[in-house]
Each structure stands twice: as structure tokens, then as C-alpha cells.
């Protein structure tokens, strides 16, 4: 019958889960998952990236400052060394020009002695010469034969005549090696003027540059304001060649610029112009070597950033997967619950229909039963009825059919009852006392002792009063049927901790005939009975169904000839389950 009803509904319970899966679209979750992951990644990676970029830029700037400052200081110090070198030499020449008379300076031996002292005190002097106001070299001490040479037409001679002092650029001159001349004009008290001219070896410049102790890929050199190299450069030209890149803007403060050099390298260029001479000191350092530390730090930063991104990605995916799984489960449960409600509503309608049909059928069935019963009664009394046996067989057949119909209608009614759940808060102890009292008459009649042990601290439970009364009436009826006259039935009700929280346990125990192992295995099967034609029509299977439907548990222990104990546990709150 239940199978038929289920098939009438078209949605057997076992198929519900499948329907739910179909209803919750997997694409929806895929999209949702993608959106949540994207949002989580955006929320965490944007600040992380901004932080990383800011950190990167700040760090890069700090590193650049760390590199540029020492370079600037080094250029400044070296420029000062150059200036000091040139100032010392010019002062020396100036002092000699002032300290000695023209006559003394024109004396070869004296000049040679002065030159010897000069060379001893100051490195770098190559020669010393006295030039008169007409440009004639009147005296000369040095490695070359320059005495008598006239310089009147040379630019430096004109300049020293005008300015009184002159420091030349590096030039090869007659000597064919790079040198610098310092010339000082002196005017005696008698109005006579002469020029003392000294030549300096530019190897001294190279020594100053070498003292900068630059790395091999770095470079430093002296250049004049016209861009001619005054010392050799490792990369940008030899002395007196044109500098391979344009001169930087003029400034006397040491300055650092970044540029791409003619070799294609990105370099820092530190430079400073000399205020007292037409020179500029330039130092060049490739960024790649300067930033070696920075590149290592940058690699570390990048690694940390990538590891952070990977960790965020991993966490976002894990968290989202867990979230989606929970959502999916919750939605499935909700869907299932909705479908169960829908399903029970359908079942409830079918139940009411079944009850109506059973009622309508039961009354005519009762008439058929009585009429056939009467026919049987009358036939039994008629000994001489010609075809008595045949008639009796027919009547018996009708009665058997009535019995079958009765079974069907009772099962339909049982089904209808199961569908009709009405939850209220109730006192289970009170309900059991009342139900037991219904049987007091029969118990008294048969001298059966019925004892109730109800815990005074029972919680009130949420359940269906009418269905529970049916359950316990059935249990007591079964117990009464099982015990002999003078037997004993006891019921104990107490609070327990059930699997899903607080619960109440009812134990109904009798010392009746008990059940065999075989019977025990069938006890909860639908329509299984050992006492046909008696009782209220509620089988233990229906009792089982009701208890399960109300979220409870039922268990039975029995021993043939000793007795039976049925234990029902009901939850405090209502937990409806599919029976």
C-alpha cells in the first residue's frame, strides 16, 4: 500500500536527494567560487602589491642615495686635492718670482739651485724658466734646450701679461708629453716685469685620481671646459682627445647625474667644475655594479612578494572551497527540507483521502461482515440443508475477503494517522499516567499489577500528544496481552542525554511470555502480528514509524518465558524525521 502511495506521488523519498542535486546548479557555485576568490585576492593582493611597489621604490631611492652620496663626496674631495695641488704649485712659483730679483733669476746657477729646492719640496715640477717682458726665455732649468725661445706670440703669454697669473690646460707643446704650465708675472719696484714659468708633469694628476681607489669598471678623469680630456680615461678617451659624451652643465658643487654612456651602460656620473681653472673632475660608476646589493634585495623582495601571493592564493582557494562546501550543504539541506515539507503535505493529503476512503468502505464492509456472519450462523444450525457445505465454503470465502479488506482499510488508516502530526509542548509523565489509566479496568479485572515510576524532574517535550498516546496505548496493550493474569507491567520515565541533546526515556517492562529470537527480528516489520483479530489495530511497525517520525528511537529486549522490555527515547525538542 505504501509503495503504491509513494508511486502515486511520483517522488519516492529515496529520489529526493537526487532531485536536490539537480535543483542546485553546479555552474552557480563555480561562478560564486570564482567571484569570492577574485574578491578575496583583490582585497589582499592590492594592498600587498601597493606595499611591495612603495617598498620597492623607497628602497631603490634609498639605495641610490646611499650610492650617490659617497660618490659626490669622493669627487668633492678629489677636486679639492687637485685645487690644493695647483694652488700650492702656483704659490711656489709666485713666491719665487717675488722673493728673487730679475738678476738673481737670470743667473743660471741660482735658478738651477732654486729649481732643485722646488723639486725637492714639491713633486711634479719638470722645469723652470724666466721670460722677459718681450717673451724671450732668458733663463731655463730643465731637461730641454729652451733657452732663447720666444713666446711673445703664444696665447698663454698674452694671458699672463693681462691677468698676472696663468694655469694652462694640458698640452703636448714642444716636449710631446702632456704637461701643464703655471706662469706668474712679477713687477719689480723699478717697473720692470718678468714672467716665471714652471711646467708640471700630469702624472701627478693621475696619481691623485688613482688615490680615489675606484672599482675597475668605474672611471675618473679630468676634462677641460671645452671637453678635451686632461687625463687618460679607461673608457671615454685618452688625454687631449675629445670626451666621448657632452659636457654636463657647469656647476662648482659636486653633482650626480644618471645617464647612458657611449658604451650603452647606465651609469652614475659625479662631477664638479674648478672655480680657479678651466677643469672639471668627472667620476663615472655603472649602476649595475653600484646596485649589486640592491639587486639582491630586489630578488629577496620579489621572492617574498611571490610567496605572499602564493600563500594568499592558496588560503583564498581553501577558504572559498570550504565556504562553498558549507553553502552547498546548507542549500541542499534547505532544499531537501522544503521538498520534504512538500512531500509530507502531499502525503498528508493522500492520508486524509485514505482515511475518508477507509471510513466509507468500513461501514458497508461491516454490513457485509455481519450479513455473511449471520448466513454462517444460520447455516451452521441447519443440519438438513442440501448443499450446506458448499454454502458454508462460499460464506467463509466472503468473510475472508472482508478480513482482507479490513486489513487494507486499517493499514490505510494507519498511514493516514502517521501523516497527521500536531506538535505541542507536553508532559510525557502525565501522558503516560493517563494512557495507563485507560487500561486500569482490564488490569484490575485480570489482577495485573501496573506500576509507574515517573521522574519528578522530567523536562516538558515538544511532540504529538495523540500519536504518543497511540504509541503507549499500543505498548501497554501489547504488555497486557503478553502477561498472564496476576502478571506485572512497569513503566519508568526518566530524563537522559540523547544523541542530539536532552531527551526522555520510557521503559515499559512486562514479565509476560516474551518473544523468540525469530519474532524479535520481525517485530517492527509492517503488519507482523502474533495476535490476529485483537488489539487496537496499531501494529508495532506503526508504533515504530510514529516514534521515528517524532525524532525518537525505539528498542526492544525480550526473552522467551521471561518478559519483554521496550525502550522509547524521545527528544526534548521536536526533530521530525522521515519515517
Amino acid at each position: 500500500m505504501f509503495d503504491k502511495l509513494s508511486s502515486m506521488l511520483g517522488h519516492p523519498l529515496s529520489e529526493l536527494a537526487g532531485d536536490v542535486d539537480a535543483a542546485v546548479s553546479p555552474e552557480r557555485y563555480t561562478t560564486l567560487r570564482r567571484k569570492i576568490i577574485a574578491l578575496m585576492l583583490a582585497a589582499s593582493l592590492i594592498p600587498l602589491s601597493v606595499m611591495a611597489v612603495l617598498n620597492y621604490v623607497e628602497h631603490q631611492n634609498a639605495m641610490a642615495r646611499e650610492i650617490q652620496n659617497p660618490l659626490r663626496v669622493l669627487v668633492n674631495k678629489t677636486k679639492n686635492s687637485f685645487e690644493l695641488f695647483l694652488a700650492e704649485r702656483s704659490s711656489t712659483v709666485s713666491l719665487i718670482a717675488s722673493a728673487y730679483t730679475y738678476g738673481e733669476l737670470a743667473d743660471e746657477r741660482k735658478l738651477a739651485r732654486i729649481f732643485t729646492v722646488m723639486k725637492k719640496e714639491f713633486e711634479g715640477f719638470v722645469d723652470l724658466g724666466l721670460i722677459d717682458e718681450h717673451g724671450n726665455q732668458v733663463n731655463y732649468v730643465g731637461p730641454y734646450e729652451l733657452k732663447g725661445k720666444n713666446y711673445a706670440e703664444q696665447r698663454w703669454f698674452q694671458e699672463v701679461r693681462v691677468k698676472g697669473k696663468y694655469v694652462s690646460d694640458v698640452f703636448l707643446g714642444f716636449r710631446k708629453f702632456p704637461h701643464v704650465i703655471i706662469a706668474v708675472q712679477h713687477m719689480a719696484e723699478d717697473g720692470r716685469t718678468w714672467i716665471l714659468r714652471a711646467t708640471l708633469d700630469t702624472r701627478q694628476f693621475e696619481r691623485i685620481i688613482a688615490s680615489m681607489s675606484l672599482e675597475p669598471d668605474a672611471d675618473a678623469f679630468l676634462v677641460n671646459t671645452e671637453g678635451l680630456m686632461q687625463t687618460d680615461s679607461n673608457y671615454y678617451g685618452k688625454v687631449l682627445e675629445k670626451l666621448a659624451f657632452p659636457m654636463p652643465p657647469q656647476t662648482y658643487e659636486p653633482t650626480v647625474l644618471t645617464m647612458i654612456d657611449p658604451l650603452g651602460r647606465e651609469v652614475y656620473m659625479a662631477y664638479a667644475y674648478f672655480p680657479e681653472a678651466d677643469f672639471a673632475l668627472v667620476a663615472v660608476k655603472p649602476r649595475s655594479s653600484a646596485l649589486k646589493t640592491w639587486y639582491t634585495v630586489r630578488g629577496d623582495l620579489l621572492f617574498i612578494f611571490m610567496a605572499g601571493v602564493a600563500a594568499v592564493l592558496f588560503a583564498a582557494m581553501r577558504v572559498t572551497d570550504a565556504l562553498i562546501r558549507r553553502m552547498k550543504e546548507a542549500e541542499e539541506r534547505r532544499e531537501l527540507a522544503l521538498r520534504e515539507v512538500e512531500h509530507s503535505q502531499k502525503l498528508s493529503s493522500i492520508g486524509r483521502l485514505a482515511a475518508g476512503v477507509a471510513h466509507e468502505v468500513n461501514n458497508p464492509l461491516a454490513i457485509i461482515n455481519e450479513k455473511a456472519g449471520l448466513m454462517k450462523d444460520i447455516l451452521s444450525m441447519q443440519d438438513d440443508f442440501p448443499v450446506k457445505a458448499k454454502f458454508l465454503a462460499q460464506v467463509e470465502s466472503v468473510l475472508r475477503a472482508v478480513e482482507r479488506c479490513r486489513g487494507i482499510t486499517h493499514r490505510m488508516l494507519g498511514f493516514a494517522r502517521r501523516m497527521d502530526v500536531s506538535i505541542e509542548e507536553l508532559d510525557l509523565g502525565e501522558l503516560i499516567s493517563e494512557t495507563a489509566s485507560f487500561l486500569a479496568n482490564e488490569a484490575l479485572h485480570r489482577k495485573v499489577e501496573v506500576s509507574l515510576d515517573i521522574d519528578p524532574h522530567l523536562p516538558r517535550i515538544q511532540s504529538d500528544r495523540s500519536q504518543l498516546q497511540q504509541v503507549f496505548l499500543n505498548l501497554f496493550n501489547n504488555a497486557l496481552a503478553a502477561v498472564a493474569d496476576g502478571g506485572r507491567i512497569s513503566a519508568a520515565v526518566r530524563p537522559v542525554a540523547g544523541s542530539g541533546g536532552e531527551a526522555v526515556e520510557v521503559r515499559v517492562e512486562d514479565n509476560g511470555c516474551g518473544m523468540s529470537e525469530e519474532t524479535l527480528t520481525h517485530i517492527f516489520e509492517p503488519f507482523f502480528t502474533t495476535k490476529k483479530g485483537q488489539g487496537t489495530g496499531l501494529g508495532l511497525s506503526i508504533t515504530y514509524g510514529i516514534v521515528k517520525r517524532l525524532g525518537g528511537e525505539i528498542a526492544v529486549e525480550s526473552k522467551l518465558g521471561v518478559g519483554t522490555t521496550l525502550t522509547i527515547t524521545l527528544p526534548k525538542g521536536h526533530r521530525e524525521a522521515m519515517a
Partner: protein
Amino acid sequence: MNAKDWKILLVDDEHEFITTLAERLELRGINARVVFDGESALEAVAAEEPQVMVLDVLMPGIKGLEVLERIKRTNPNVQVLLLTGHGSTRDGIEGMRLGAFDYMMKPLNIDTLIEKMESAIDYAAKAARSAAAGA
């Protein structure tokens, strides 16, 4: 007690059913009066108190449970066996709360009915004896 001495009242609006039942009981030596509605049942009880009344729950006019309630007030010694056609134990339980001795569902097994009648009559007799002893 001899079966013939039982005072039985059958109440049901299903004529065919209840008269046939009365006839079958008669064949077994049990004489039963038959009425077809609640009001007649109350009158019949007032006229002569039966020991057992077999009462249908669902009848037109006064319903079975109301008849039971009223009779239990006026004639508490009458033992009532409720009959239900629609098989609702709810009515049966309500009936027992109101003082019915037991309840049965249609179609009936006549032997079970007679056993319950006998139990009811025995119970009433014992109750009367203990009441008398108590008095």
C-alpha cells in the same frame, strides 16, 4: 451470569449492520435492544439501564461521544463499548478518557465483541461489589 440475562443496548445509525448484529447475538442467546440514533439511546437508557451499551461514535444528531458523556453522568454503571468506523484511535482514546470501557473498530469480530461484553459485565459486577463493601 447466563448470557440470556445480559442487558445489552446497541446504538448505530447503520440499520442493516446493527440489526444483523443484534440477530447474530440473539442466535448466541444474547438479547439486545437496538436503537438508531443518540437521542433514542438516551431514552432507552432512561427507560431501562443496560449493563453494556455498544455505541457508534459517528452518528447523525447527537454524536456517540456526547451520548457517552451524558450517560456516564446519569448512569455511571453502564459499561460502554465504542464502535468506530473510521478507525481513528483519537476518538477511541477520547472515549476512554470519558469513561468508555473499551473501543472496537468495524468490521467487528463477533467473538471478540462478546468477550469484551463479558469483561465489561464482570468489571461492573466487581465494581458494584467493592462499592457495596466500601459502603
